């Protein structure tokens, strides 16, 4: 019997619509975030006419922020009254996205780049002006104020080289501009076949229209007195280098009561040059620059709230039932850290214990000890190991071993150290206070030890708990959806009835997180250097992993590194930039002062979305400083042959039994 599927168990987190965030939701979310930061006027400086570049990676919130400033959303904030909005806020936002221009067609087809440049500039400005007028029309609809429309339109016509005749209303001017745009569309599109762009006439000088109209509007429509007209031009990474020059020219030649906020991906700006012989536009003098990436990431509280809302919406919860973070959390099993993660670790060791085999980490330690004591001293070595045993608490055993490695030396030192560790361990298990060194080591390295323990038993490192999942997504709702989608699928398959009466197991969460790391890794990027960037990030991750799973890791929860960018090769720098552009690496604000050079090093974290792929920590604590030679071997493809040996040297000090004496050559930053 062909039946339609029994129940609709479509994955509620599948990435279906972009309209997950309608204007209303954007509004609600950003109200909180933006207020936290002193309001929009502080963030985007909207009362200033100084143009600004707004840069952010995928999901940095840049587009939402810009939309938040757009006229329709302004009106929404003030009970659908645009004039109240502009009176209170002091600006009028005209939002456009370069993506909608489909600029790929302004190229080739038998025309020269110079020709296309001129056509593009003309088209672009017509387009801006059209959208400006559209907003004006919106204002006239929402809050009509009587004004001399005819006079406004007449003066507007004078902005053209040859004033068009017969236009008497704003709408007719709008229609006129639209018809001009359509004419260009038709000719440009046909030129693929005709190889001919004759018929396109540039009817005004660059800048005349987009900077000329706002003062006229202010002059005739009193509500606009003192208001700044802001062109919010988003996604200009879609423009070619030549086309971006035009936008830069607009920035340079901006005047009057209008300004520009340009949105682009972090490394989406291809040039700062302008059209003609122009010098590049100057930072601070001609434009400001704001990098948004840390923005959402830094707002964990608001983001958590949004995350819960998103989950609730996806689960179609009736609005009367308010889901708070606690109840959403309860759907997910969490890792219990109590008593040295005993819940988690006890099931781990059962299988090997049943087989009456030695625990793997003790096997390894034995080998290292025999190295120091000599192969004949098995009894002595066993005695030392017995001191470190703590059967019910494998994590304590791991801690003990780490402590031993930290105090490694000759036989006498080791025996003495083992005995002190034994005392500490006994106290620890009894819940009493231990030596400072012992407890500090545990505080720092608990998650690394846990990861190592899982690895020792051939299991995947667990990643679980709602706060971990939210943290993984790094302030990007799309990432969160990606993670939840994979987890839901795994949980459903495992029969756990996710969100339908059951809780989601640690295993399903971990598997889902690993799946989403793979997805994030493979996720499409808008440029073509895939292999290079991935290889570089892979090398970096391998370095981190080697440290984390070494006998004596130099840093805890290692997923962050610092580097003096002035000292690395150009190719390395470019790859580093790309990795950031893709959000594989996150640049951190607090770069540290390099001990030797006194420069401020740049600091980067491996994206928590990717970290699970290599069993790394998703929370950052320790940082490793990477010198230029090693950095080049990681990020510069042409120098990557040296990576393996350089890495081994770098981690030599962390490997038993020698813990290579060559420590002095490498700076190690602990926290």
């Amino acid at each position, binding site marked *: 019997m062909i039946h339609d599927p029994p129940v609709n168990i479509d994955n509620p987190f599948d*990435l*279906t619509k972009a309209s997950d965030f309608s204007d209303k939701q954007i509004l609600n979310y950003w109200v909180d975030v933006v207020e936290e930061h002193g309001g929009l006027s502080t963030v985007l400086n909207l009362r200033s006419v100084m143009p600004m570049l707004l840069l952010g990676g995928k999901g940095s919130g840049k587009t939402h922020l810009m939309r938040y400033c757009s006229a*329709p959303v302004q009106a929404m904030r003030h009970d659908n009254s645009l004039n109240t909005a502009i009176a209170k806020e002091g600006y009028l936002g005209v939002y456009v996205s370069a993506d909608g221009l489909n600029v*790929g*067609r302004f190229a*080739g087809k038998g025309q020269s780049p110079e020709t296309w440049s001129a056509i593009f500039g003309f088209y672009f400005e017509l387009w801006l002006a059209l959208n400006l007028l559209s907003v004006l029309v919106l204002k006239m609809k929402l809050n009509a104020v009587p004004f001399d429309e005819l006079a406004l339109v007449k003066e507007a016509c004078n902005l053209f080289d040859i004033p068009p005749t017969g236009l008497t209303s704003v709408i007719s001017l709008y229609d006129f501009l639209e018809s001009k745009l*359509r004419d260009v569309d038709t000719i440009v599109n046909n030129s*693929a076949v005709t190889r001919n762009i004759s018929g396109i006439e540039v009817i005004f000088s660059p800048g005349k229209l987009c900077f000329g109209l706002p003062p006229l509007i202010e002059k005739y429509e009193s509500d606009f007195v003192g208001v700044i007209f802001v062109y919010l031009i988003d996604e200009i990474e879609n423009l070619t280098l030549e086309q971006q020059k035009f936008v830069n020219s607009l920035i340079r030649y901006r005047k009057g009561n209008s300004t520009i906020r340009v949105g682009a991906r972090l490394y989406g700006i291809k040039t700062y040059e302008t059209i003609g012989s122009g010098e590049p536009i100057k930072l601070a003098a001609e434009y400001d620059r704001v990098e948004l990436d840390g923005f959402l990431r830094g707002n964990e509280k608001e983001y958590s709230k949004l995350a819960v809302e998103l989950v609730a919406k996806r689960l179609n919860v009736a609005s009367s039932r308010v889901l708070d973070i606690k109840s959403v959390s309860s759907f997910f099993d969490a890792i219990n850290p109590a008593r040295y993660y005993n819940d988690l670790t006890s099931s781990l060791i059962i299988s090997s214990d049943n087989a009456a085999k030695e625990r793997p980490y003790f096997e390894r330690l034995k080998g290292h000890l025999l190295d120091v004591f000599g192969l004949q001293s098995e009894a002595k070595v066993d005695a030392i190991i017995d001191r470190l045993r703590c059967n019910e608490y494998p994590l304590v055993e791991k801690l003990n071993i780490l402590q031993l490695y930290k105090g490694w030396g000759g036989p006498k030192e080791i025996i003495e150290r083992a005995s002190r560790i034994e005392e500490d361990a006994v106290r620890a298990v009894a819940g009493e206070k231990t030596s400072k060194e012992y407890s500090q080591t545990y505080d720092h390295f608990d998650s690394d030890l846990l990861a190592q323990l899982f690895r020792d038993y051939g299991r995947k490192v667990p990643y679980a708990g709602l706060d971990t999942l939210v943290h993984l997504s790094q302030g990007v709702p799309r990432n969160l959806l990606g993670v939840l989608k994979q987890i839901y699928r795994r949980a459903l398959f495992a029969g756990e009835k996710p969100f339908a009466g059951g809780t989601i197991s640690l295993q399903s969460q971990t598997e889902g997180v690993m799946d989403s790391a793979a997805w994030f890794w493979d996720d*499409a990027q808008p440029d073509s250097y895939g292999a290079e960037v991935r290889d570089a990030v892979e090398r970096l991750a391998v370095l981190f992993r080697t440290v984390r799973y070494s006998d004596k890791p130099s840093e805890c929860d290692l997923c962050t590194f610092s580097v003096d960018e002035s000292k690395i090769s150009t190719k390395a720098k470019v790859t580093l930039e790309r990795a950031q552009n893709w959000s594989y690496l996150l640049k951190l604000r607090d770069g540290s002062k390099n001990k030797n050079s006194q420069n401020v090093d740049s600091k980067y974290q491996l994206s928590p979305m990717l970290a699970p792929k290599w069993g790394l920590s998703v929370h950052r604590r320790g940082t490793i400083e990477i010198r230029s030679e090693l950095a080049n071997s990681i990020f510069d493809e042409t120098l990557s042959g040296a990576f393996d040996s350089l890495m081994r040297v770098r981690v030599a000090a962390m490997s038993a039994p020698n813990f290579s004496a060559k420590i002095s050559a490498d700076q190690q930053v602990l926290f």
Partner: protein
Amino acid sequence: MMDLTYLVDAKTLFISDEDRWDYFFSALNDSERVRHTFNKVQSENKYWVVIPEYQYDPADLPRDANVLRTESFNEADQIIETIGSILSAVDRAARICIDITGFMRPQILFILKYLEVSEFLFFDMIYTEPRNYSRKGETEFTLSDVTEVRQVSGFEGSHNLDMSKEMPKDVLFIGVGYDSNLMARVALDKDRARQLQLHSLPSLSADMYQESLIRLDRAGLPNNSGDDQIFFSSASDPYLTASALSSAHSRIFRTEPISNLYLSPLATKPQALGFGLFYLKELIGTPSSIIFPFSTKYSRETSEGVGRTWRYPICLS
């Protein structure tokens, strides 16, 4: 009654002794099915078109046939410089045949447009299937990453430019294929659009449909059954594809107006041809365009043996 607009023509098996043309064009690549067909076809004039995506050296080119070469990477330039250079002076009633097997999908689309604008309204296109569709796991056909996603020349449409209104209701309609990377790139490019999918079912071979679902998942695209987002059409028939697109289109329009429509045929070449036929018939002058993820390098050989050759009679009037 079913709308037969696109079914007036149908594919037929190509029989080399029966069909004859005045002009025949084929894109050179290393696959047996392209070379074999070139030899079998009977035509007054036959031309190899050499496109830069396959990176041929002058030394590799066949010496015993006419060769038209282009170095451009723009599909309009490519076709005009090659096919256009021969056909510009030819009688519009001449019998023309294009073997689409070796051409890239944007080129196939532009050829359609070019012939239409040049008033060659009746012509044939042929396509040869490989003998087996072997599922090669992670095979990618493009050799380099996607360099850009843009509109195909001739299919740019007249998109809505007024963005100051509320969130636009853009729609992206993807012809689901095998290459996860291509699908993901296109979806990324129009990530604010509502995404619809045209699946190849019946697929070229029985296991390909299920495989494409896995590729779809890898591209991060959804596959919810409830949302009226999924449509189906045969993979190997451009007429059925065009017909399916047409009915999908009217259905979508009935439920919600679309501000901008973007189509992207990422499955087979016959499917791409179907997209082209549908576009030329119903979407000219509308805010719709065909977009494609362009790469600069392609593998010259992706399948084995020679399967059936199909002839698609095209009528553009």
